[in-house]
């Protein structure tokens, strides 16, 4: 089976006053429909890895293939377009554009691509995530958990190849955290989404199909 996401010999070194290698020769691949998590200590390089996959950072060496496209070779403009069509990104904070409505936030990647939404798919997403009645609100009028649901909805709207979530429950209480984790599983099953979650939370991690651990810039499989 062909890998949906493939990272080959990824290395990332920051050269400021001292040279720091954050990722060292990381090889990784992910199949369609997988739900995986990466755990690790702060500074281990897990978020850097996610940013490289999301195309918001560039590796010092190595290649990243998403649906066979080497995104490290794309121009800035092409990478942005590729990201909006193929990658959904969810952050811990600052996920939503505060001055536009929830509906517009969700539809934004499509609108930026001058595409119309598939109404049934849109309805399915919002009902799955339980935000049907929040569409005309603004982000500041939502709770943290609701905001994260909207962020997940936005990451799903373009039917991306992969959803990358960086500490999606980091800012939430236990109840909301469990709900969001359950939602990721539900989305994974219902929409066959490929999801990678970076987390500190072992409970979140173990709810995924596969768990990786990042230790000093090296990625190891923990359990399947």
């Amino acid at each position, binding site marked *: 089976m062909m890998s949906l996401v493939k990272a080959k010999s990824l290395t990332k070194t920051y050269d400021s006053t001292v040279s720091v290698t954050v990722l060292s020769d990381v090889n990784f691949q992910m199949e369609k429909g997988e739900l995986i998590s990466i755990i690790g200590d702060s500074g281990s390089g897990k978020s850097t890895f996610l*940013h490289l996959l*999301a195309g*918001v*950072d560039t590796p010092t060496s190595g290649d990243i293939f998403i649906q066979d496209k080497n995104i490290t070779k794309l121009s*800035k*403009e092409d990478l*942005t*377009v590729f*990201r*909006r*069509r193929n990658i959904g*990104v969810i*952050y*811990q*904070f*600052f996920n939503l*554009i*505060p*001055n*536009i*409505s929830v*509906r*517009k936030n969700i*539809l*934004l*990647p499509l*609108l*930026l*691509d*001058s595409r119309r939404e598939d109404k049934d798919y849109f309805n399915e997403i919002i009902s799955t995530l339980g935000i049907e009645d929040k569409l005309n609100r*603004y982000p*500041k009028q939502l709770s943290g958990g609701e905001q994260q649901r909207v962020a997940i909805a*936005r990451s799903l709207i373009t039917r991306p190849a992969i959803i990358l979530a960086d500490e999606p429950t980091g800012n939430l209480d236990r109840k909301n955290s469990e709900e969001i984790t359950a939602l990721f599983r539900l989305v994974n099953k219902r929409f066959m989404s490929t999801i990678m979650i970076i987390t500190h939370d072992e409970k979140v991690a173990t709810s995924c199909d596969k768990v990786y651990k990042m230790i000093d810039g090296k990625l190891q499989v923990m359990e399947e």
Partner: protein
Amino acid sequence: MKIINELSNSAIKNNKKDTLATRISILMAVILLGTIVFIIGSVKADNYNNIKSMIGDYHVSFSGVDEEIYDYLTAYEEIDHIEFDKIIETDMDEIIYEKSPDYWNTQDFEIVQGKKPSKEGEVIVPSRLLAKNHIYTIGSELDIDNTKYVIVGEYDDHSYSFEESIFLGYLENPTKENLFQNNVGVQAYLWYDSPRDTYTLTEQILNEFQINEYEAKNSGRLFYNTDILEYKMIYPSGIIPPKSVMVDAIETYGACFLLTILFAVVIYGAFNVWNSRDVKELALLKSVGMTEKQVKKMVRLKVLRLSMIPILGGTIISYGVANLLLYLFWLNNSFSYQKLSELFGERMQASDFHLIGISVPSILLIIGLSLLTVYFSALIPARESAKLRIIEGLNGIKEKKTRYGTSQISGKIETSLAKDYFRSYKSTYRTIILAMIISSVAITSTLVSQSYRALNMEYDHFNNPYDFTSSIYTDSELDDEMVSKINDVEGIDELHVYQHKDFKFFLEDNEKFISNELSNALVDGEKRADDMYVRIYGLSDNDYKNILKENSLDNDEGYILLNKTPQSNFIPYTFREYIPLTEEDNEIVVRYNAEGKTMNIPISEYIDTFPYELDVHGESGVYIFTTMNKLEEFFEENGTDEGDPVNYYTIQLKANQDLAKVSDESERIISSFIPESDYSTSTILLTEAMNNEQIRNEHLLNAGIQIIMLIIALSNAYNSFHGNLRARKREFQLLSTIGMTEKQIKKMILSESRFLFTKTFIAYIAVFIGIVIARVYRSNYGFGFGLKELLSNINYIPIILVFIITLLGVLFAIRSSIQTIFKDDLNDTIREI
């Protein structure tokens, strides 16, 4: 507290780009404000020094001082000091003014040769006396009323040739015995202990001697040194300035006030943008225990630290800019004077250029005003920072209810997002719009005033139809030979020679004379009785006969009244409607002055057209026409006006060929009969040249104002837009992570700037209409007509230029900010997230 100091200091050091942008904004504003303050200060100080050097800085002067008044004044406790002039009338045609030593420190006299008197008995005499009487030279001794005087110098007195010569001498001994010796006049100059009491104390003194203040002022006996007093803000009603001073102050300081507001708006905008960006840092500081008071203090300290360098730098630079501008004006004036000298054939020279004196009050005013403006501009951001809730600052979620508009989904996404952002940043954009509007208002007011002047020139102006006009001042009659020679000049199509004399017209003398319409207009306030005067024209016999003929009148030699006056003093010249002055009462009563005797003028005929368009029809003038001979007879019967004994003659002509030649020839004839000091001429050619010179000067001044406003518009548009975009860096990068391309973000920002310009334009149109309507409303024109004419005469190019330059500033800011934002690694922002 040391830590607050350190934090405010580090906020400045760690935000180099913001520091630079804000400092540039403050620097620009201070330079502009400082330039205006230095120029106004210099003009006012020059005016004060000029008056002081010309006539001295005494508070009040009055003549006709007798021994009793002398005793009273010298014993008056609240007078700081007094100086006296001893006036000696001689049997010859001369008056000697013995002046106190202080007078000789002024520049009231221009020594042509010799020296100024330095002791009793030394005098200087007018040059024209030495030219006329060759027996006198410098060093000549004169024996006047048994007192010996020596001529030590000659001065240029710019008087008419027929006026009495004034000898200026040195008064060494101002004692009562000396001053009142030989039955002479004495004039006193007073300096009070407290200049502020000038008007009240003078009134007290006058009351003591039953002297009417109004009459004394009118007759010239009493003179308040108003220029000096007004400079010290002393007015007849105490600290409340009269209307004229208020109007002058509004005109002078209006620009200063407008610039200060602009300054405040620009600085407020810069601080506000910066503070919104620092909101997270402020929340963190509050989370570790910084109190509201400390936050306020930190913000204020930051502001003061930020502004000290640009305020001091701006003050120094503005001194240079003000000097440069004044130098350019001086250079332009020199050029104008040179051109006018060529036109008039006499030497005219601009006074020497001098650097603006370093005035401590002006510097303190600039620094004080700038600090105050900066401080008040920082108050709102400081208060908002202090009130910031920690949680709101940290997670950016405001608990305060926010009003949201409709977030549209349809249409182009770049445009719809731009609308959303424009709404969210409405307070920032409002500040930018306000600054742009204020700079445009300054230039619009200038252009509207200019258009209004053009309107007045067209509709509220008498167009003299004559090509050549010469005014002659003499103590005798006009030489017939001169008139006959001018008559013979080839190329003259129409020639009029006449004399005129003005008289006082008092309503109480003429109650029977005035018509009902005039009486009603006076009651309604459409006309003012106080302003009314009578002018009698003594025409040549020919011109007079022609009037009789044209109007089918048969009185050989009498007084013909132009029986009409404008219905209202507030209607422009072209649109006036006239009412009769009298219902044909056959007598008008005039006087030379308020205290003078009444003189009856029997009106024999009435006309309703100003003959030959000889003169402007003044709104308060009553015009009577007779022959020159008859006017002379009148003077013989009633005596001449002692207050103004000059005979005023006018020669006006229209040429039907080579105007320059006709003018030259006519002037040559006049100059061969009349001394140069006793006549002045103007021709249509000179008037046109002078108008052109004035237009050139106006254009130069406008160009100066435009450049200043363009600099403000450009720097403000660039700084505020650039600051705003940089503050939104995170937002743009978040949009980028969602998949918005650089091109789309650019399009979105351009759409925002389009909204900004549309809103600015709409606001500007409203303000523009407001300014135009206010101008028309305050004018004497019909509303519709004034509006149409004013709008069609405005020079729109500078306004368009301001908008274009501002647009360029915004586009440049967008380009430069986008480059900065996207140059940074996207990951840096994500890390901040």
